[in-house]
């Protein structure tokens, strides 16, 4: 089940980055985020994308885990971007839930 955690983790990372992309800021935020928030979200986003390697590693070990990590980035990206076109705020907010779920799945496992 580790790979489920990897999926949620990468989704959360993409959601954080998506929220601060210039084009998306007016769609996601009612008031524009402060530079501090933008920076925090950028760091958190890349960090979560990188962290999603760990559950892949736990599931598959290094070589297979790395292959799975790359494909998982693609899959979770699709899971964000296409729904984002229909419900931008919800898709980004789901990123927060996804981050919690990622931890939860790791703990339950």
């Amino acid at each position, binding site marked *: 089940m580790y*790979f489920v955690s990897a999926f949620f983790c990468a989704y959360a990372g*993409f959601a954080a*980055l*998506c929220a601060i*992309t*210039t*084009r*998306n800021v007016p769609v996601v935020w009612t008031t524009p985020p402060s530079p501090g928030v933008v920076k925090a979200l950028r760091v958190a986003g890349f960090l979560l994308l990188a962290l999603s390697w760990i559950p892949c590693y736990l*599931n*598959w070990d290094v*070589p*297979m885990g790395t*292959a*799975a990590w*790359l*494909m*998982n*980035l*693609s*899959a979770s*990206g*699709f899971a*964000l*971007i*296409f729904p*984002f*076109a*229909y419900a931008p705020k919800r898709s980004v907010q789901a990123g927060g839930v996804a981050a919690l779920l990622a931890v939860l799945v790791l703990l339950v496992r």
Partner: protein
Amino acid sequence: MEKSFTQRMSWLHTWFGLVLGWLAFALFLTGTLAVFWLEIQHWAEPELHGAKMLSAPATVQYSLDYLQKVAPDSKRWSVYMPDFNRHPMLLLHWLDENDAQQFVRLVPDGSGREVKTVTNGGRFFVDFHWTFNRAMPDLQGRTFTWTYMLSGFVGLAFLIGSITGLVIHKKIFRNFFTFRRDAKVPQTRWLDAHNVLGVLAWPFLFMIVLSGVAFYCYLYIPSGMQMAARYPAPARVTAPGAGGPGMIWARVVTDTIGLVPGGLPEPGSPAPNVPVADLFAQAQAQMGELSGFTINSPNRDNATVRFTTARARPDVITFTSDSMTFDGVTGRVISPPGNTVEAVQRLSNIFAGIHFAFYGGTAMRLLYFLCGAAGTIMIATGLVMFSTKRRTMAHSPAAARFYEFVERMNVASVGGVLFACASYFWALRLLPLSLSDPSGGSWDVYASIRAVPFEQAVRTDLELYVFWLAWGVATVHALVRVPQKAWTEQLAATAALCVGLPAIGYLVPNCDIGSMIAAGDWKMVAVDLGGMSIGLMLGFAAWKASGSRVGVRIGKLVGPPVLSPAE
């Protein structure tokens, strides 16, 4: 005027993408389905559905008991172990009193039931994916497929497309999360979808195409081509280990099990042998998962037992091949494992391992499937975009005719191959099992379409006929119908076929999804439900196509040719 680098790359991307995209779509679609080809094979063989499997050691013992009963005096027994997780079929080979190869395919539940269905199953997608199911005799009458050259060329073009695509993509990072579904210009929507799919799946796409081209790279040079021409055994079920449908390719074991160094020894005098099940456990402890074993001179004083590992294993990416041999009387190890392979072969094994996706279990294959599907859809969006962009730009009647032809070809190559694949699944389910090849079928390296009189055609032939006939009908339909209607109708027909997959299971014994859920055969259920979900998505696509401007008739939009100032 001198063109910029980006413009040149754009030209390359557009025209390589268009001409080879028609073929690339078919290759990508079948390749994506081929990720689960063993599950589809299982789905296509009703005898295996819902069977309660024996454990691996029990299967070994059962195989030996079976062979002891049917061929106690045989010079050689071979056992190909079932792949319990994906395609649980047990294949037993033995030499009869005339030293001719005999085989039986069994359900590994201990009942002795045979798998009588001979089908291309999911294997079809694997073969189509690189040979288009075409085999041609060369001048010496040997089978020589030239079509793998074509698929290799498409692969190279795809690599060019993936690199030029990155070069010409404006603002990759700024538009990383951009999919403007409401954009006024339809082309923008298609472009966004194309970009999102291509950029996000880029690492996968590059890796899968590179590994696909690279692991057969020796086939693209003359000496390799000569090897390929000799490769498929023309005779049926004669070479040791080469005949018998199913398990050989199932584990990608090639023919190493049946081939024992030194040829076939003369049988010695009768003598008790050590229990092979114990040797099996020993070999498995040393080498990992085994694909099978061969016993030379069973029940004799010169008996030897050779165990072989699976070529493709779930625990490592690279393909492997190893074996160890025991003395059948004393149980002594004659040759330990430790096969060394040449550097080139090792490299080829790694590329093959990456490409074939046997490693990592179902979750990994699901990722391969999703990313492959993304690539497939990306190609389709690219093709559609070509038409959408140009249909209003035709500068002459000839150009307008060309663009209309392109649009029809898009329908034939995208809608047509989807329809053909869905029809093929129906053929797998509905063609009578009694049409199966009574000889058990031949499983050469290429399962290719044959031209035989209709009354001689066996089930495997008919399955392929259905596929090609469906594609032919779809092509004709695409050429005569207004493109927008053709899109809608072909997508809707494919959707209906896919959604209907679980339903037609009820027409054939042992294939209904209800009792398979009850029996816990999730492999079979997953293929049914997966087909149904794909059908629902295609239905959505058909609905969108019916109302959108995907295929407005070009002729209506093109006015008198607009001459540029220079003219």
